[in-house]
């Protein structure tokens, strides 16, 4: 992690919302997955639409994530970015597929 949080350094870059929200709710010192699950069901929160879209993008193209920023911020112990992201998707969106069979993102 650099001198400040990723979303402060690069507020307009891809995955800034994903990293900010996962850090806020899932960092070990502030772990609160239940609140994030409730928040994920809120359709009145524009940031959660961005979050879901970035989570999909990260699952589909984990190589696009900014180096180790996600791990450095969230400090998960799932073994890989991909494992963490897929577990997160299951916990938040259940059986909803992150990607359709055609490879296109499913609609929210």
């Amino acid at each position, binding site marked *: 992690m650099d001198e400040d949080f990723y979303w402060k350094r690069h507020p307009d870059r891809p995955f800034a919302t994903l990293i900010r929200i996962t*850090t806020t709710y899932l960092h070990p010192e502030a772990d609160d997955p239940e609140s994030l699950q409730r928040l994920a069901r809120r359709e009145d929160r524009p940031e959660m639409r961005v979050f879901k879209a970035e989570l999909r993008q990260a699952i589909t193209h984990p190589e696009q994530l900014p180096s180790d920023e996600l791990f450095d911020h969230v400090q998960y112990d799932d073994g890989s970015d991909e494992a963490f992201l897929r577990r997160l998707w299951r916990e938040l969106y259940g059986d909803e597929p992150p990607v359709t069979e055609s490879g296109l993102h499913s609609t929210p």
Partner: protein
Amino acid sequence: MVGFDRGFDRDNGAEGDRPAEAGAHGDSTVQDGDPRVAVETRTRGEAYADLRQVVRTGWDRHQRFDTPRSELAMFRAERASPEAMRIIVAADQGGGHGHIRHEGWVTEEASMRRVAYLEDPAQLDPGRRRAGIDGLRPGDRNHLCASRSTRITDPDAFATVLARGSAHPDVRAALSTPYDRDSRPGPVRIPIADLLGSDGHRACTGWQLEPVAGSTRTAVDNRRAWRTAIADGRQPDVPEPRAHPVPTFEGGTIVFAVSHNRQRNGYEIATLFPQSPAHDLTHH
């Protein structure tokens, strides 16, 4: 001195964090009654962790923070001296855990065991702590820890951080966020020097997982696998986690995490902890 050689259950179930016990006095301990020689009150584990911290980082465990007593007293004008204690007691009335896991009452040994073995200093039941059960979350949930466990060793310094941090515009802005029962503001970082002065980093210590094959991420993964194997009664197929002192907090920050208050009608500081600068992420 390398590694962390007081492994899980190697003290045969003895309570490692007990603050004082007759059988744990060091070699320099003298019989009671000699008024001129200090009695060693730490356990061997505590003395071991303290010594490693001193040797590796130059930490002075006897150094006391130069407390701004009048400033702390103004934090809550109705509260009398001792100011810092009262601030920490006030924090204890809330739902935050910063003073429980990141303040001076947590020993170096407890901080070291937290990051290495996921033993929660907030878990007061020794058996459950050794089993990695979280001390604050309901149920038997596993304790979580990042790749570092850090603390502000002096309670006056901790109270000062809490008082000054609570008044800092960035923290105020987070706490003043319009309340939403499902969401909370993101964390805030403030330079240690802004809160504690240019020498404030000396009041901070920490332990970090030793990277495995050069990777902190692998070390974190291995720690979970090791913890799970121990809990299942299996022989771990990964190396026992090791930890070493964080070299320095100079140039570091204090992270403030904000969450819901107990009444769930506003936000409060859920925790605060020191974070060393980025270049210390790698093993020295």
